[in-house]
């Protein structure tokens, strides 16, 4: 097979490509969903194909196909070069790639249990038991439990001489209880909303989640929310739980530091960024205790891999250092414009898409607070957990998040549950109001398997390590 891949690269080069790479992927997924005692879906999907990316006449071209044979690879190489030549009719400058080390290597996600070798029966037993416990609470109208597993085998070969094989395993799952009373509906989820938490790991990841053990609390909280008081509308101190803070990092830091977005390459779709190059090393993005790193080597993170889809080795890059904005997520094409090397974040969704700059594990580093001490240290405020809704403007400044649940904080103690908590703010003001971050005992890597970007639309698997943190003077209760 590798001869075919090399042959396609050579063919593209002969047709005029100054650079070419090919990615061959075989992606296997398994999805199991149980709802109200019924196994709603067990689906298995396998897709194999390849994509060829070339630079010809100084412009990009890309073509892909699910028909994997030598002749089709040559046809697609031909098409990619034709497309690049069409692109070059509307260019200003030639595409130039930053230098990078060239690797011939293999990488396999370290796992203990191959999720695809675990019998369905065992997986179903966990999901059905968790579902049963959720429904044992009569206030729960909809119980949902699920697991998903991915295995991606990919080979990357470039005209620069790279030859990299990777096998990435991803596993995850979650549970959710929905309580409904008339025109009110409340949901509680574990370990995170929108189908749980995910990591690059084997089946042991799902076992460690203990979905069954958390089901009684999840059900109780969903039902309790129906009769809870509404989150008050006010400006107050806000303590944000880890999974919600992960999405806050994602939307208000992860996206605006994508250098392609900064350069306007996503302007027509997701938008641009307020974190422009003139602000690099100057913008006080957050308070002195805010440190954020992009790290594709975080053990078990959903954004962890060996090499990105340009053959750049996984690495760790400082983004926010003591509150100062110091780095971007980059690709070979964009890094060179800042006289840098790529920091390895260029990734494609499947064989059918081009690589784009995508978040990896963009982590808020732990602070030094115990959670209980943080609550004790707070006279008045709201503690919120688990994302319900998210929205942010096209430069990533004004954000609005809704959460599943909140608790009042009064005189250093957690008080009553409040429902429909939401908060809003402006990104740098918000991060500069951060005055406490919990320590590594509370730090969890939250996997997001549904980050959207690009046209055609691509979905990336990314993650954020976070611990509960405190923010002052935040506008809460804006859900109407």
């Amino acid at each position, binding site marked *: 097979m590798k001869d075919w891949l090399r042959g396609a690269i050579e063919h593209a080069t002969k047709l005029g490509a100054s650079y070419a790479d090919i990615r061959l992927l075989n992606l296997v997924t398994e999805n199991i969903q149980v709802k109200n005692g019924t196994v709603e879906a067990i*689906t298995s999907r396998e897709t194999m194909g390849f994509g060829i990316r070339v630079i010809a006449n100084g412009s990009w071209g890309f073509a892909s*196909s699910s028909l994997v044979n030598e002749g089709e690879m040559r046809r697609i190489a031909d098409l990619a070069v034709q497309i690049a030549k069409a*692109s070059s009719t509307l260019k200003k400058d030639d595409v130039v790639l930053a230098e990078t080390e060239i690797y011939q290597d293999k990488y396999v996600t370290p796992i203990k249990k191959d999720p695809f070798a675990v019998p369905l029966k065992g997986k179903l037993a966990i999901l059905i038991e968790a579902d049963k416990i959720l429904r044992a609470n009569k206030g729960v109208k909809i119980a949902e439990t699920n697991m998903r597993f991915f295995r991606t085998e990919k080979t990357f070969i470039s005209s620069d001489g790279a030859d990299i094989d990777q096998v990435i395993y991803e596993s995850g799952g979650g549970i959710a209880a929905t309580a409904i009373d008339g025109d009110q509906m409340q949901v509680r989820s574990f370990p995170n909303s929108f189908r749980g938490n995910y990591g690059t790991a084997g089946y042991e990841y799902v076992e460690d989640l203990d979905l069954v053990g958390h089901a009684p609390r999840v059900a109780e909280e969903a039902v309790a929310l129906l009769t809870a008081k509404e989150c008050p509308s006010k400006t107050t101190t806000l303590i944000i739980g880890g999974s919600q803070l992960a999405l806050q990092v994602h939307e208000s830091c992860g996206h605006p530091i994508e250098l392609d977005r900064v350069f306007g390459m996503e302007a027509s779709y997701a938008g641009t960024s307020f974190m422009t190059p003139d602000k690099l090393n100057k913008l006080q993005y957050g308070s002195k205790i805010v440190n954020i790193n992009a790290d594709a080597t975080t053990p078990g993170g959903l954004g962890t891999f060996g090499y990105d889809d340009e053959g750049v080795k996984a690495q760790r890059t400082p983004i926010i250092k003591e509150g100062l904005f110091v780095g971007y997520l980059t690709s070979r094409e964009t890094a060179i414009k800042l006289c840098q090397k790529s920091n390895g974040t260029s990734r494609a969704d499947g064989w059918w898409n081009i690589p784009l700059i995508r978040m990896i594990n963009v982590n808020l580093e732990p602070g030094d607070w115990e959670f209980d001490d943080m609550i004790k240290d707070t006279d008045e405020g709201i503690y919120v957990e688990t994302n*319900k809704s998210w929205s942010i403007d*096209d430069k990533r400044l004004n954000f609005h998040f809704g959460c599943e649940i909140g608790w009042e904080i009064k005189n250093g103690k957690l008080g009553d549950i409040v429902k429909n908590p939401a908060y809003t703010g402006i990104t740098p003001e918000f991060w500069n109001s951060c005055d406490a971050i919990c320590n590594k005992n509370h730090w969890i890597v939250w996997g997001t398997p549904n980050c959207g970007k690009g046209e055609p639309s691509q979905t990336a698997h990314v993650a954020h390590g976070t611990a509960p943190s405190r923010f002052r003077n935040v506008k809460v209760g804006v859900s109407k």
Partner: protein
Amino acid sequence: MIGKERALEILQKVIAMSDGDETDAMLSTKQSSLTRFANSTIHQNVSQTASDINIRIVKGKRIGVASTDRINDEESLKKLVKKASTIADFQEENPNYLGMPDPSPVKEIDSFCQATAAYSPSQRAEAVRTLVKVCDKDSIIASGSFKTESNEIAIANSKGIAAYHPTTSAEITTVVMKGEQCGYAAASSNHVSDINIQAIAEEATDLCRRNVNQIEVEPGKYDVVLHPYAVADLISITCALEFGALAMQEGRSFMSEKMGQKVFSDSLTVWDDGLDVSGMPMPFDFEGYPKQKVVLIENGVAKNVVYDTATARKAGKPLTGHALPPGSTWGPIPINVFMKPGSETLDSLTSKIKKGLYVTRFHYINPFLDIKRAVFTGMTRDGTFLIEDGKMTKAVKNLRFTMSMIDAFSHLDGLTQQSMFVGGWFGVRVPGALIRGFNFSGKTQF
């Protein structure tokens, strides 16, 4: 494209291999090309050739679903059938499974355009050059995408359904910018010749020129005129979340309580029609059942939801042809949505407002704050203007809205005569609208 005969032949072959009591299968192929431009140059340019076959095998009430993209490989097809069969063997009984649909005549609709299917990278580049040329005249920077695509879908089941539909689509969107100014335009059709690049370029650049020196306005309730781009976002999400039978049966939708009630303004009438060629037609659903026209809202009254086989049989209602692909647990949703126009123009709607805002489109709408009250939040984008004494007077910085769509569309006070097809998954055809007391909850800095 492999054609009707070959597509149905492959489906019959996999159905014949199945050991299930009932089996259905869906085959799709796609040739999709997209030219993306930014900073007035083509920076991404891609093509995808893809195929997929999905099989659902049912044994009693135990269901197994599997899919692969190797549609022409005999061994892969055998493996696919075996995988789905094995999953069904391991499955628990699903009491909600109420059988596959019986065959019913499907109307043939011609939505395939050879010129669109054959549109080349050079033609797309030429179109983008035309757009950039208009922008260049005023030193405006262009970004956007131009997609041309051909698809075919075939669905068959062991009860005799055998449906096939080829289609094409062309879609362009552009955001043009000059400093802090920006404008937007988009068009979508089955036929690439319907896309008037020059008109798109002029619409976007005209908006950009007017969207200058944006002032800040305070959040609060404003009467708003919404361009069809903005109406499309609100209506399509509302319909998808609230007007599916499963959402209603599970109590997730406001339709659980409001079916048959007057919920919205008299002037709001919305329906789903997969056969209307002024939209992006699709004559059958993902179970192969023919699409029926369903009136969702009539003169403000919540009238109907859409059904697939499972939800229709559970409710004792006729099927409406709105199933999603096998394996989806979302339930049926309306995907070919139309909104009845009125008699106004955007200008005449604007003239009815003493003080308010004009919104070109919304950005990043999230509908999950309170699904049962359809509370959405999102930002304005690419052209928001102050209306004073019946006229658009100044460009304004973007605002965040947070509002129940029940409240919004119960304060609908006028619709334009002209409707517009706005692309999306299958897109929606909607007019422009005047809504009184639209709630803006926040603001941003640009």
